């Protein structure tokens, strides 16, 4: 019986800039089904945080309820965590973010947690441009309750539990996010870490709300023939907008590409995203083109992945509200209480 992960690691594991190896970003051994896409996303998060050289205690991982929302146990053991109420991850995160703006917020949610019970919270967090990386582990079904269709199950998709194909259209989370004016939208696939890791890194460096709608096959209930969220179906229908690299600091790019085929998007912190476009005329900084592209892909039956849209000049909730730069939890009495003399002045003004 092995629920125990050996503690031995590769003896030559590289260290990142802050002196940690990948092990320092790992979590407990997963109890999800073997082959669950969610575990790959956890692996990508571990790798992305390691590569970004973020100190684990500077991250807060917050989740709701569901298979997806269990995963924060399986990565970043040394980070802050809050496993909240079903669909309420955005409001918990809003509170935490307001109290301590210095942490990086990593919200983990699933298709049920986001597109059904948490829909209201989801759209409002986007509308407010909360500084949050919001990863949806999207498998199109309710795995924890034995695989019923979720609101992201595609029209006509057959799950292992459902006798008939889904009669309803799916909620397209990336499309909805675009409609809500999100400042960073991406879609990816748990089986494509090469794309997912730089996307997570870019999302963590973005200021404002960053959604990654990550298709993550449910091996137990939704990896069957007829499902549109199986490993095979997704691989057959996937179309990437671009190949992207996340570059943490300005470096000269030595590789030459055909004119008009590459785009660099510089983020707030000076890092940038380097994109090699696969689809002509794609411009991830142009909301209209991005929305058109999403719609066209949908019409063609393609699953478009990669960075869909980014607003590098986005203003997050703190900037919109012009909140104090110091995290609220660090403000001292002297900062908050102007003193009796100031009170006297105010009172005098009332007389």
């Amino acid at each position, binding site marked *: 019986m092995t629920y125990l992960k050996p503690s*031995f690691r590769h003896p030559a594991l590289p260290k990142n800039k802050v002196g940690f190896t990948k092990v320092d970003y790992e979590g407990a051994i997963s109890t999800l089904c073997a*082959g669950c896409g969610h575990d790959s996303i956890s692996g990508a998060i571990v790798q992305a945080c390691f590569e970004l050289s973020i100190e684990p205690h500077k991250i807060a991982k917050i989740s709701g309820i569901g298979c997806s929302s269990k995963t924060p146990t399986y990565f970043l053991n040394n980070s802050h965590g809050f496993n909240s109420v079903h669909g309420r991850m955005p409001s918990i995160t809003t509170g935490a973010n307001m109290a301590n703006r210095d942490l990086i917020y990593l919200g983990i949610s699933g298709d049920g947690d986001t597109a059904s019970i948490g829909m209201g919270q989801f759209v409002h967090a986007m509308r407010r441009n909360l500084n949050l990386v919001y990863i949806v582990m999207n498998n199109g079904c309710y795995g924890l309750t034995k695989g019923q269709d979720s609101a992201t199950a595609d029209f006509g998709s057959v799950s292992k539990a459902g006798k008939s194909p889904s009669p309803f259209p799916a909620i397209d989370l990336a499309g909805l996010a675009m409609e809500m004016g999100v400042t960073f939208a991406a879609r990816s696939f748990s089986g494509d870490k090469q794309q997912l890791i730089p996307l997570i890194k870019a999302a963590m460096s973005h200021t404002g709300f960053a959604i990654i709608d990550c298709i993550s096959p449910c091996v137990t209930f939704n990896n069957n023939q007829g499902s549109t969220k199986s490993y095979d179906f997704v691989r057959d229908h996937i179309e990437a907008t671009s190949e992207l690299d996340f570059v943490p600091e300005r470096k000269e790019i030595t590789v030459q590409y055909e004119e008009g085929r590459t785009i660099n998007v510089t983020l707030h912190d000076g890092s940038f995203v380097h994109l090699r476009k696969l689809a002509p005329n794609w411009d991830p900084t142009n909301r209209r083109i991005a929305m058109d592209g999403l719609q066209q892909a949908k019409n063609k039956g393609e699953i478009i992945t990669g960075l869909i849209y980014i607003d590098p000049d986005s203003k997050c909730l703190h900037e919109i509200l012009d909140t104090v730069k110091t995290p609220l939890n660090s403000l001292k009495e002297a900062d908050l209480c102007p003193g009796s003399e100031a009170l006297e002045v105010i009172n005098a003004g009332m007389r």
Partner: protein
Amino acid sequence: MKPTNIADPEYFHKVVDCQYACPAHTPVPEYIRLIAAGKYTEAYMVNWESNVFPGVLGRTCDRPCEPACRRGRVDEEPVAICRLKRVAADNKGDVLQYMPKVPFKSNGKKIALIGAGPASLTVARDLAPLGYEIHLYDEWHKGGGMMRSQIPSFRLPEEVLDEEVNFVIDLGIHTHFNHFVSSMKEEILSKGYDAVFVGTGAPRGRDLELPGRKDAGSNVHIGVEFLANIAFEHKDKIGKKVIVLGGGNTAMDCCRTSRRLGGDDVKVIVRSPFKDMKASAWEIEDAQGEDIPIMNNMPPKEFVVENGTLKGMIFGKIKAEYDHLGKRNLIPTGEPDVFVKADDVIIAIGQDNAFPWIEKDLGIEFGKWNLPVLDRLTFQSTNPKVFFGGDAAFGPENIITAAAHGHQAAISIHLFLENKDIQKERPAPTTNLYRQKMGIHEWMYDSPVVNDDRYKVTHEEKSVTLKNRKVEVELGFTHLEGFKEAQRCLNCDVQTVFNTSRCIECDACVDICPTDCITFTINGDEEDLRTRLSAPSNDLTQDLFVSDLLPTSRIMVKDEDVCLHCGLCAERCPTAAWDMQKYLYSVTKAGQIL
């Protein structure tokens, strides 16, 4: 890279580092699991089939398996394989019931074995059950060869050796003990043997021709002769001050023996640096533990004799320098020479082969260093009837190598006497793969990897052992210690078998692997692939396991280097593309032994 051919028996064999490194390819993890299960008799028999002397080797083996042990690459120290072997030998039950039983049906052929050491005894063990009439010649009154004459009884008690020698002798071997063969032609070849095996070891200890050597006379001893004289009780005393020259295992045995025979100021003096000493680390440690200083970088120059009595030796001082090719030069430091007092000096600086008893006109050619010209695979000499093995074949090695030679020579002799091609008709190893799955998280082997450090074996009190050379120093593991040490074994013979057609590329194995062995990537040549794996891939001696092309045009690459064989890849695989299968590789012997 081309997909790995796991049907090739050598691929998975190489993954079992200990077994691969063992000259006799003893299935180490197999018997370690039996020890953990308390099945000591069965563990002993696995050993006996493979190396004939489990009790002897469990104490004295050179342990090429231990530096090879995978655990040494992820943990500080390897599994104490040798000491575990001893646990099986010490606790075994009735093993005779499993051994071949005399009488065997005669096949009418006669074989002579010269020298009753480990190589000859192995040949005897392998060939006797096939019906050969075997004649074993040795100059001493008992079998065992160097295991008896060279290994002091505080490391190998006589009863342990006697028992294992007798297991072989009792297979109906005709012994000719107290018989020093002085002529191959007259005493052996003239008697009409169908084949002859020479396992006479490397019996001649090197002397040191320095000024004063002749005058020093009987107070200077040759290491191997000294040890033999003690073993056969021709000698039981030595002076108070003793110098042992040499840095090999014989030197260690000589100095420790001297401590037990009255030497209370025993020094080992070596001409080269400590790190270049040939002795096994644990033997050096044991010698130091018996208050024997080891002095390095001191080449001997002269025996000092006054009035016919040895007074000591003069040594120079050197330092070692290594050129860019790693070749060592010993350069004098210019410091003044050192005089070291001594009543006795033991010279243990190496052994040579000597075959004065083999006449030159027998068609047996000798080459470099007076070694016979042999076929490396078959051990056949230039006289097709005559085979060599053990130290007599390629110079001084060790017991386990002698046993490995014996097995191969026995196969050659058997094929030769059946008029078969001894090169081409050699039997292939037998191999087996058994699935280990019992449930989702249950395997037939103990898959969890324990963190325990290597257990130390208890020693008898020094005050006791130094008084009596027959008291064994190491007490061996207790049952519990044996169990715990056995649990440290990573079960490298339980192989990770990958089935490309089942893989859905979900990455579950990549994510769970504690040591980052697995990568899915685009194919390339080996050098290129090694730069693109999940973790650094620096050990080029460890193979990459490469799959066929997967649906996404990638391949699965597994670096075997630090795989813990924990089975997590197979547990997390939703389609059983990974499976844990026990691989049993067995070197085929001349005939079936068990």
